[in-house]
């Protein structure tokens, strides 16, 4: 034990801390006479500085958002199992001096010029807000901005053939929906999961395989246990529908099921309407609780209603569900952290009680949500003209991505690249699971300076008409030269 005496006779917090500390201090020798843990850290002694936080290990950077690992050589990258992490991709990309380099790991929309985009309608809304001298910065209620909550619920649950948000879902009309503003998609998922862990009888959530990298941790830390259901079929680069149904069929009654409302991340593979209907019937027959993650409404197909149809299908049958909404992509409000959690309940009374409990989750987490992004969304959604403008800008983003898909597909076909590349135009949303293997991905990085995660996922948002040919060349070379 490195020369430190750990008392056997008690298990005081100090002792437990000491043990935990010692376990982490590999290679550190501790002279108990001079550096007993009890005395050193906060005593201000001028001896070697031992920290009470010394046992806190340096965590690897977050796979998707982190920016660590500044000096990781590429050759080492190839050998490491976490090469599938976009952050490693971005770091390596940044170090690459080639003018032809292409970063297809990015998970935020980019213009044809490769720049981040702030929507015109968002700028206008922001200008209005900043210029409005009557606006104040008082705390929002714990559940957030009321207007925003109402409008967000209508946006996702609204009626068919929605024209400017009139025509409302019966669930909303009957006051059966509680909507609370949360910190984008992540925050909405976390608050919903915490609520379920405390108040729902079943504590297992089934998530698709694969899914967004953060889902497991969000649910795990909230106190749910996480299982998976089959989803992606690498053989077809499509949906393993039979596997999905089998796995949901064998889930215990009442289990929670995470569903990507549209534009499944990371595969881009969505069920068809017919398949959604079968999923719905199966889930309702087993009382499985749907928890939708809706991060791409309007961004996937360009049509707000089409992208919400999976959710509305479930709500129409009168049953209950949760929906986590994010405005990060469809309004380009990434860093403002705007989202909402809606829980559709059987009765208004239940919804009221559920809301009161959601507040108890939120208050000790961050008290109340940030006002800026929600105010922007609310301003846009409640104004007929701005709403229309938004749908046009949204469609333009979605169309650019769809056009990149088409161009890439055409470029590969034009080169006679072996294989069936139709999945590129069948998949939907920001990401494409190309089907390239990790050797091919590594080859493309080395020879063509194209960066993507080793699972072959590319962000179409990182492509432009100008760079499609380069990518097509690279894929062609990889497929023909690398097994």
């Amino acid at each position: 034990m490195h020369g430190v005496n750990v008392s056997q006779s008690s298990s005081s917090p100090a002792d437990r801390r000491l043990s935990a500390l010692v376990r982490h201090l590999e290679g550190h020798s501790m002279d108990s006479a001079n550096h007993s843990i009890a005395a050193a850290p906060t005593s201000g002694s001028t001896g070697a500085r031992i920290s009470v936080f010394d046992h806190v290990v340096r965590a690897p950077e977050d796979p998707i958002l982190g920016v660590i690992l500044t000096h990781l050589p590429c050759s080492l990258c190839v050998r490491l199992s976490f090469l599938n992490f976009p952050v490693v991709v971005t770091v390596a990309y940044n170090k690459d001096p080639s003018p032809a380099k292409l970063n297809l790991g990015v998970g935020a929309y980019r213009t044809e010029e490769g720049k981040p985009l702030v929507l015109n309608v968002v700028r206008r809304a922001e200008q209005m807000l900043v210029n409005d001298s009557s606006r104040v910065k008082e705390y929002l209620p714990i559940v957030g901005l009321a207007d925003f909550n109402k409008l967000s619920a209508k946006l996702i649950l609204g009626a068919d053939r929605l024209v400017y948000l009139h025509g409302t879902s019966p669930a909303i009309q009957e006051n059966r929906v509680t909507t609370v503003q949360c910190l984008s998609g992540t925050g909405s998922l976390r608050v919903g999961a915490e609520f379920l862990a405390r108040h729902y009888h079943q504590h297992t959530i089934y998530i698709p395989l694969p899914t967004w990298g953060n889902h497991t941790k969000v649910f795990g830390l909230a106190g749910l246990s996480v299982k998976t259901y089959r989803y992606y079929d690498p053989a077809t680069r499509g949906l393993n529908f039979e596997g999905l149904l089998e796995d949901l069929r064998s889930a215990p009654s009442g289990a929670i099921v995470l569903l990507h409302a549209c534009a499944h991340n990371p595969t881009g593979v969505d069920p068809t309407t017919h398949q959604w209907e079968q999923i719905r019937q199966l889930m309702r027959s087993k009382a499985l609780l749907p928890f939708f993650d809706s991060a791409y409404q309007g961004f996937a197909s360009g049509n707000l209603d089409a992208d919400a149809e999976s959710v509305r299908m479930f709500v129409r049958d009168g049953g209950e569900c949760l929906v986590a909404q994010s405005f990060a992509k469809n309004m380009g409000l990434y860093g403002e952290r705007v989202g909402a959690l809606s829980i559709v309940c059987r009765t208004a009374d239940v919804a009221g009680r559920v809301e009161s409990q959601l507040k108890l989750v939120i208050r000790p987490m961050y008290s109340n949500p940030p006002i800026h992004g929600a105010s922007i969304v609310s301003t846009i959604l409640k104004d007929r003209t701005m709403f229309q403008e938004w749908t046009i800008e949204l469609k333009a983003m979605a169309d650019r991505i769809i056009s990149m898909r088409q161009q890439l597909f055409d470029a590969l076909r034009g080169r006679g690249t072996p294989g069936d590349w139709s999945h590129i135009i069948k998949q939907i949303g920001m990401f494409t699971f190309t089907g390239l293997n990790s050797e091919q991905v590594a080859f493309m990085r080395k020879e063509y300076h194209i960066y993507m995660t080793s699972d072959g996922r590319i962000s179409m948002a990182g492509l432009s008409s100008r760079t499609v040919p380069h990518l097509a060349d690279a894929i062609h070379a990889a497929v023909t030269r690398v097994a």
Partner: protein
Amino acid sequence: MAPPDPILGVSEAFKADDHEMKLNLGVGAYRTEDLQPYVLNVVKKAENLMLERGDNKEYLPIEGLAAFNKVTAELLFGADNAVIQEQRVATVQGLSGTGSLRLAAALIERYFPGSKVLISSPTWGNHKNIFNDAGVPWSEYRYYDPKTVGLDFDGMIADIKAAPEGTFVLLHGCAHNPTGIDPTPEQWERIADVIQEKSHIPFFDVAYQGFASGSLDKDASSVRLFAARGMELLIAQSYSKNLGLYAERIGAINVVCSTSEVAKGVKSQLKRIARPMYSNPPIHGARIVANVVGNSDLFNEWKEEMELMAGRIMSVRKKLYDSLSAKDNSGKDWSFILKQIGMFSFTGLNKAQTENMTSKWHVYMTKDGRISLAGLSSAKCEYLADAIIDSFHNVS
């Protein structure tokens, strides 16, 4: 059905009341003499600058805006402080004070399993909820002495001493909430002595830097005293009150470590806690702070506005004290109102008396007897004095 929040629920009740003399002394948000919310001029200027610049809205890193993290630590310690120079502070942007406390609580739960947090009796109503939800056990140290309406210093020291070694001791950096009672500089030294003797870890909640005395440096002196002793400590900061950024949710958790290496490790683990909670923090408030603190003209203007806010509160304390002394013939000593500091005053009213304040006088306050002086205008001091005197003497 969950009960309404004891603090935030007060404002909701106030809104529902239509009595003409109603007074909201519940939530701690600053009000002008006209009892209007106040957006600082420097904040408006910063927002306009940001709009002109056309900043994008890309995700911040998990740890938040780098420019913000830099200025917030410098504001707290002073840019030339050794902890900053030696890069020993792990700073992560958090969702105001609450969010920053929550990150720290989660860190404690994970890396100091079994360790307790010692919190003052009383303390801000949400502290216990935060530690409960984070799974961190807590117990209390004596703080408020109802007999003197002052600090039970001996009780405080005794309880900190009695706590098991390695306990986290939650301290209010200045303007204790809800009592308004702060230790003197000499008492802070003694508190630091005892914490060092017991190898406890100080954990500061700094929600009022600059807002309490009007001076940023003065209000940070307790934190700096501990840092100067070479201690490791945690500090949660909030810009809700001092920059009036309540709804923007901007704050930070700072962990002062023995070495910069340890600080890097701690920062990385704080990020691991933030990511499954909300991924990355909101940009708007962080940019405002970075712009104000990072621009010397705006920074100076901010200091002036802060002095005005703190000054108004001090003058309203004086007026209330004068009104109480003039109207109350019982000989009760109301000077505690002048001795207390910050937004809040602990009136010493009990639950029944507080209920009388609301039901008879339409004065809304929290049940622990706390009033927010920020919500009081000099015009209403006499009315409030009447209400307090009536509740104190005629209700038990």
